[in-house]
Every structure is written in structure tokens, then in C-alpha cells.
């Protein structure tokens, strides 16, 4: 870099207003992109956190989700007897048959209500979710219409707070506890006693899915093969991790629309950067001529103005990162196409996402700066000197 960077930096500070306005345009574009990326990242983290590496999810053959899966108590007994399943301290296999349904909960943001997953399960099933810690109240009792809600639900839905009663099935269910499951999907669910829910729904012999904890990674693959290939069972077995990963597709529409908006804005921002840089080249024509007379090459001039455009856009990128920082860890929710219910999660702004934002801003600076820098480099010395 022959022409000192100070030259570019000071020129950016000299024309403060233009610099700030252009940088703000770029910042807003970066902020839109980063918001979408943070949302997708938050959802991905939440879904990744939801899966235990040794969990196998068993559903009816052909069903794409727990909600539309049907398993019978007989199938459950057969699954329990399969080899390679982890056992708890009492020597019982760690297998949980569960019933999934959805209820509509209203919130101030959604007065019409949103589908929330209700999971009926036994104490074994609750114990398999080690990351779900009871932070308020107590666990539901068997044979009672009692609910333990995920923290995300308790925070977002006033009607699902401690002591409140929710009506569904054949009566009112009292919220008796809140579990904190960190960023996992369990924070977006409500847990009830399996038998009580099955009785209320009339589904004692038509439950939803079976969750199995494999003894180890080697047994896990064998167990999945065994369960999927047992013709008598007619069930599909997949790693819980794979099941949740498939749900990240729920963010696809937001990701597509957000990226599209960001790209359109980026084109506008590139033109703004281009306009700013063309004005800078015109205003500094005499300086360009002088630099050439002093011995700086055309390439040196081009590089200098190009770098100035990159610096301008980098400033925009940094501002954009600052703009979205307040979003970090902000609670939000999205409807899942797989569970037909809400998954709540937090926006997550990672260093990698910020780097993507900065890179995006640099691309805007590069596309906006290349032509003005080229025009600066092409100027004839005497013409440039006269223009000043």
C-alpha cells in the first residue's frame, strides 16, 4: 500500500455526513441479513440442543412427525425388549412411550392463539430429559390433570404461568411446575402425565412415539436397524438428532425472504457507496493528478480509492453488527412445519455470523467502489489537475 491509509481514513472523517449516511445504509442492510442469520442460528442451536446423541425416536412407518405417528402399547413392549437399550439405576430400560397433542394458547402478541405441543409421558420419559430442570413448583402427579410447562412457554404465555388452569381435553389442567431446558425444544413444550392425557383424548391404545436411549453409539446404529427392519413392528427408527435437524427447514421461508430483502437492500447500498465514491473522485481530481505527478501509479490510485470504499463499507458493517447486538438472546418463536406447533428459541449472534455481516459489507464496498476507483485511475494527469 503506497498511498498511506491515513489519507483514506482522514478523507472519510473530513466528509463526516456523507460517510455516516452511506455507512448507515450499509449498516441497515447488514442488520437485516444478520437478524435473519441470528434467527436461523438460534433455531438451529435450539434444535441441536434438543437432541440427545444416544436417543432414537421411533414412529409409525411413513409418518414424518411425532404428531402424526401412532404407536400401540404392544409395540412399546416389543421395543422395550430389544437389545442395546440403556437401563436406569433400577434396571428398567430407558424407553418412553409418549403422546403428543397440541393446544392453542393465546398471548398478548397472538390473541388468536398459537399451537403449543403437549407431551404426555411417564417418569421414565421425564428422567430421559436430563437437561430439563425443574425451576419452579413441582413435577406433575400421575392420574392428575397437572401440567409442567417449559420456561419459554411460561414467559411468553400468561395463561401458562404457575397456578393458572388451561382447558383442553375433558377439563382444566393446572400448571404446577416450570422446567428450564436451556435452549432445547423442551422449553417450548408442556408436559403432562401420559395416562391422564391418553384417557382424556381416548387414545390409550393409540399413542404417538417411542423415545429410546441406546446403551452406546455402536448399539444405537444396530438398534435403529433392528427396529426399522422388524416387519412385525412396522416402525421407523431415526436418531433424534436427525429428526430435529430436519426441523430447521421451518426457518426456510424467513431465511429466503430475509436474504432476498437483504440482497435487494445490498444492491441499493452498493449504489449509495458508488455514488459517494464517485463524488469523492470528482472532488479530489486535483489530488489524484498531484499523486500521479509525485510518481504514484494508476494501480496505486485505484487501490487507494478501492480501499477507501472498503473502509467505508466496513464501518457500515461494524455499525450493522452493533445494531443487531441487542437482538442477541432475545426470545422468539417460530411455527414448525414438522410439529405444527411453536418452537421458542433465542436469537443467537455468533462471531461467525458477525464475520459474515462484515464480509457482506465488504462485498457491498467492493462492488460500489470498483468503478469509481477505476475512473480515478483512468484520469489523465493534466485533465485531473485542471478539474481541481
Amino acid at each position, binding site marked *: 500500500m503506497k498511498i498511506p491509509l*491515513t489519507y483514506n481514513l482522514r478523507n472519510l472523517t473530513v466528509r463526516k455526513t456523507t460517510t455516516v449516511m452511506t455507512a448507515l445504509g450499509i449498516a441497515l442492510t447488514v442488520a437485516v441479513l444478520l437478524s435473519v442469520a441470528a434467527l436461523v442460528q438460534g433455531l438451529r442451536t435450539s434444535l441441536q440442543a434438543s437432541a440427545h446423541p444416544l436417543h432414537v425416536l421411533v414412529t409409525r412407518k411413513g409418518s414424518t412427525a411425532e404428531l402424526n405417528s401412532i404407536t400401540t402399547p404392544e409395540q412399546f413392549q416389543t421395543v422395550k425388549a430389544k437389545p442395546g437399550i440403556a437401563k436406569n439405576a433400577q434396571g428398567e430400560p430407558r424407553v418412553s412411550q409418549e403422546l403428543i397433542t397440541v393446544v392453542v394458547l393465546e398471548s398478548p402478541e397472538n390473541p388468536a392463539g398459537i399451537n403449543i405441543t403437549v407431551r404426555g409421558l411417564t417418569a421414565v420419559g421425564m428422567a430421559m430429559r436430563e437437561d430439563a430442570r425443574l425451576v419452579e413448583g413441582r413435577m406433575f402427579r400421575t392420574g392428575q390433570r397437572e401440567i409442567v410447562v417449559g420456561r419459554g412457554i411460561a414467559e411468553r404465555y400468561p395463561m401458562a404461568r404457575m397456578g393458572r388452569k388451561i382447558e383442553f381435553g375433558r377439563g382444566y389442567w393446572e400448571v404446577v411446575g416450570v422446567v428450564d431446558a436451556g435452549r432445547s425444544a423442551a422449553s417450548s413444550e408442556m408436559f403432562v402425565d401420559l395416562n391422564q392425557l391418553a384417557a382424556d383424548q381416548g387414545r390409550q391404545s393409540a399413542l404417538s412415539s417411542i423415545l429410546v436411549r441406546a446403551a452406546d453409539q455402536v448399539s444405537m446404529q444396530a438398534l435403529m436397524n433392528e427396529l426399522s427392519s422388524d416387519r412385525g413392528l412396522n416402525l421407523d427408527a431415526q436418531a433424534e438428532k436427525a429428526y430435529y435437524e430436519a426441523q430447521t427447514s421451518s426457518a426456510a421461508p424467513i431465511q429466503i425472504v430475509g436474504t432476498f430483502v437483504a440482497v435487494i437492500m445490498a444492491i441499493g447500498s452498493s449504489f449509495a457507496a458508488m455514488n459517494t465514491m464517485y463524488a469523492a473522485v470528482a472532488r479530489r481530481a486535483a489530488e489524484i493528478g498531484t499523486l*500521479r505527478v*509525485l510518481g504514484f*501509479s494508476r494501480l496505486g490510485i485505484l487501490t487507494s480509492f478501492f480501499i477507501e470504499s472498503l473502509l467505508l463499507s466496513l464501518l457500515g458493517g461494524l455499525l450493522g453488527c452493533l445494531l443487531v447486538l441487542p437482538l442477541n438472546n432475545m426470545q422468539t418463536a417460530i411455527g414448525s412445519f414438522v410439529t405444527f406447533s411453536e418452537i421458542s428459541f433465542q436469537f443467537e449472534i455468533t462471531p461467525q455470523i458477525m464475520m459474515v455481516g462484515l464480509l457482506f459489507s465488504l462485498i457491498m464496498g467492493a462492488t460500489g467502489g470498483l468503478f469509481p476507483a477505476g475512473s480515478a485511475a483512468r484520469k489523465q494527469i493534466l485533465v485531473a489537475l485542471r478539474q481541481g
Partner: protein
Amino acid sequence: MSEWVIETRNLTKEFRRAQFKIPALKNADLHVQKGEFVALMGPSGSGKSTLLHLIAAMDRPTGGEVFVMGQDVGKLSEGAVARWRNAHIGFVFQSFNLIPVLTALENVELPLKLTKLGKSKRIEHAKKALDVVGLSDRLHHAPRQLSGGQEQRVAIARAIVTDPDVILADEPTGNLDSGSAQDVLTLLGRLNKEFGKTIVMVTHDPHAARTASRIRYLDKGELLPEGQVPEDWALTIPAKE
């Protein structure tokens, strides 16, 4: 290698305006020896600045040749001519042309950025150049904080910092009051006499021209023979003894 520091042979420059060719300089033969201080004078449009620009390789001739230190500058490539100019030519503009966002010291250091000198050496040379022009106490002043005369002295420091073979000055006193103009002329005279710098200066000002050791006149694009003054040139300017 030519004995002349500057030698032009049949140097011609024509500008095109639509279908017309406008001659700006016709077959100019100028010879400048090492250590000479030559003033180029003439009415507006006589071609004196064109001649200076061609010597500095800021423009390409339409015909003829320019040799500086024996180098045919017309034959240099675009990149080579920039390096050559940095190494051999110091240029002083009428309107100073300092970079407004850089300090006096940074402006003077600028041409050295193209050399292999390290930062400390560059600063040392730039300070020395500013000392020569009497501005050691203005190192960190921005151009807008300097008077016109001081700005031109910084520009001269920038022109001499690379220790060029030739200093070319285009109306260096044109934008200055008489006091500042005299300071600049005295400085150029010193550079010529004390430091042996070869200087070619374009000027309108007969008083400024007197600083030079030799004056050459141009008229209507022609470099007049030694000692000849344009016919309608109102003033005859004797060269300084």
C-alpha cells in the same frame, strides 16, 4: 549519455478539438545544463506550460523527443514513467497542490513512500527538507493552517525530498502576495546556488524571471531563439547578472 540535463528535439504538441488540430508547441529545441536555472516566459497560450509538462512526462508529445538525464522519457511505459518521475523530477505547482488531509510532514514524506526507505528514514528526510525551506516548526500543521507562502514552501520541500535531478516549477509565485513570492523565489535561488539543483520555472512575472540565470521566451507555441523576446511582449526582462 547527453551532456544536457534536459534536451528537447523538435518537440511538438498538438491538441485536437473536434476536427481541428491546435498546435500548442512547435519544434521546440531546449537545452538545459546541470545546475542551470532557466525561466520560461511568454504570453498566455504561448506553450510554456505545455513544454514544462512534456519535460515532466505529464503529457505525451505529438512529435519530437524529450531527454532528461539522457533518458528519452517519451519511450517509457506508463508504469516506468511514474517511477522515473518520482526519482528524477520535483514538481512545484502554482496552486501548491498539497494533500489537504495530510500534515506538512506527511505531505513531504509522500513521494518517499515510493522509495525503499523505511519509515524513520523517510521522516528524517522529510524533516530535513522542511528545515531547508524554513518550516521546521510547522511539521504537524495541516495545509489549511498555513499561509499561502508557507504552503508553497511545503510544496517545494515535497519537490526536493527525493533529491531529484530537476525541479520544475509552474508559476510558483502566481498565487502569492509579493512578500511570499519573494521568499519562494529566494528559496528557489538558494536551491539552485547552494544545492546545485537544475531548475526550470514557468512564470509570467518579470521580477520572478530575474531570479533565473537564463530566460527563454515562447510565443504562439514557438520557443524563440536565445535572447529573442516576443514582438508584442511589452516588457523586456534582462536576465539576472
